[in-house]
């Protein structure tokens, strides 16, 4: 299966498929369905310094071809993750991308410092969509300078490569990507969820107790592809692509757009075997597309253009 192999900073992956953060818990639940060593990597749920319960329920709502979630970063906290969750991977041969979150710069630094030193953690994924309490709740992810500053500080303490997970709720994703690249990011994860809501016509109230939640699933795939297509042509660091991936064909589309590997989120809830099914389906896609290795497809939608116009 060498054909599926991809190599990213800190992540040596058997194949380009990982479950997305927050959609796979800390791995334990899906381990009951299949061997996690089949995966290219695993992105675990966001860790914050202290344990968090998160938002009141209802926390999820259905939308057409998508869902909203407002989990509110529920997690057992840094100490809990280190003591109880990470050891689970001791005997599983798969790289771990540890997602980190917080409400202040210090939160991120603390979690990054300690998590990056755990033997099971291969790389960090900075969730910059969280509201920055010091800045009056404006998300770190919407101001390039703030995102860059956060990246820099985290890079300074981290012992492993750092991926910055970009929020799509911005006017100019390229500026954001370039800012965190300049600040030292080793890679990008994109996209996080779009902010959305649903209203229950019976109660006349928002369905989510938090009112707003993150939109994920097939509905957002075109937005994700567009952003990856824009950004991958303007940065030199690799992109972990995500947003509505359900099938091997979706994966090919993301690679052609410019992602170097992908993460699968919501689709795990639709079918717990989504990741292994995609991995099994990829080789025949490569055959059909007449390529030897998956990495030949990365950026294929714009690299081909470039070569083409050169040869004219």
């Amino acid at each position, binding site marked *: 299966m060498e054909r599926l192999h991809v190599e990213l900073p800190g992540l040596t992956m058997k194949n380009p498929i990982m479950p997305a953060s927050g959609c796979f818990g800390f791995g334990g*639940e*899906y381990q009951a369905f299949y061997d996690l060593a089949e995966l290219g990597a695993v992105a675990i749920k966001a860790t914050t310094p202290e344990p968090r319960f998160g938002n009141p329920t209802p926390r999820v709502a259905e939308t057409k071809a998508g869902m909203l979630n407002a989990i509110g970063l529920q997690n057992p906290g840094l100490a809990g993750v280190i003591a109880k969750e990470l050891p689970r991977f001791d005997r599983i041969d798969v790289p771990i991308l540890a997602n980190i979150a917080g409400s202040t710069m210090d939160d991120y630094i603390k979690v990054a410092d300690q998590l990056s030193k755990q033997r099971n953690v291969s790389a960090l994924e900075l969730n910059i969509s969280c509201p920055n309490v010091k800045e009056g709740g404006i998300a770190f992810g919407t101001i390039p300078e703030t995102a860059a500053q956060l990246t820099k500080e985290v890079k300074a303490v981290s012992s492993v490569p750092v991926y910055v997970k970009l929020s799509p709720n911005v006017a100019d994703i390229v500026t954001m990507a370039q800012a965190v690249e300049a600040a030292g990011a080793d890679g990008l994860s994109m996209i996080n969820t779009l902010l959305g809501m649903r209203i229950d016509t019976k109660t006349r109230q928002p369905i989510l107790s938090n009112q707003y939640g993150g939109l994920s699933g097939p509905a957002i795939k075109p937005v994700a592809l567009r952003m990856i297509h824009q950004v991958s042509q303007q940065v030199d660091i690799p992109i972990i692509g995500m947003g509505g991936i359900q099938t091997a064909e979706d994966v090919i589309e993301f690679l052609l757009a410019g992602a170097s590997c992908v993460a699968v989120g919501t689709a795990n809830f639709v079918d717990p075997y989504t990741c292994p099914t995609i991995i099994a389906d990829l080789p025949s896609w490569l055959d059909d597309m007449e390529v030897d290795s998956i990495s030949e497809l990365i950026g294929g939608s714009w690299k081909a253009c470039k070569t083409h116009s050169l040869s004219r």
Partner: protein
Amino acid sequence: MREKYGELTVVKQSKIAKDSYKLVLKGSTVKHMSQPGQFLHVRVDQSEDLLLRRPISIADVDLERNEVTMIYRAGGAGTKRLSSQPTGNQLSVLGPLGKGFPLEQAMSGETALLIGGGIGVPPLYYLAKQLVEKGVHVTAVLGFASKDDVFYAEEFSQLGDVYVTTVDGSYGIHGFVTNAIDEKKLTGDVLYSCGPTPMLKVLTERYRDQRAFISLEERMGCGIGACFACVCHVENGAEHEYRKICTDGPVFPVGEVVL
């Protein structure tokens, strides 16, 4: 663990009350569905516009024929679409999931009081069958909105005493399940219940320190404990302590979690 995931075939679908359907599915994963109170996480079809699965309780199982029965209310978009699935179609079913009613809490010769409200009634039927098989006496109190909503009163009556209540008094005892309990002075050694939260709250106050078990509902994502959509607080627990309804529940001892 393919044993918890498979395509089941629609054997029969029928309307049994207002907006309420009985759906019988057949397939190899049914053999694992032996615990009453567990649920199935069902895709209503293969389209991707309604993406999330619907959690529906196991209402009955025929292990010999590999058939499981669910009873559900076609209220929203998904269950309405489910109700139009014809015989022969395949449905993607995840389950059995969660922890069901603890049968071992009722001893042979004892009496179990089963209290169901509306669409909370179905899981109590499979429970009642297993209790009776074990030699436990069953008294069922089934509450519905009105006559048109009543289902399975006949089926329960073959297993023990049944009291049906309707809110508008159009069938059985007028009022809520608690009216029936008071009026008829119904008691039991163990209590099992499933129904709307207000009902479960009243029962929690009444049966707090007794052998009483309630089944909860919450909107779900994964159904298997991975997404943290379905959590609830623990009574007298730390602020961040929680239980997941999909894996720690849906059945909890009365008083364990905050309703």
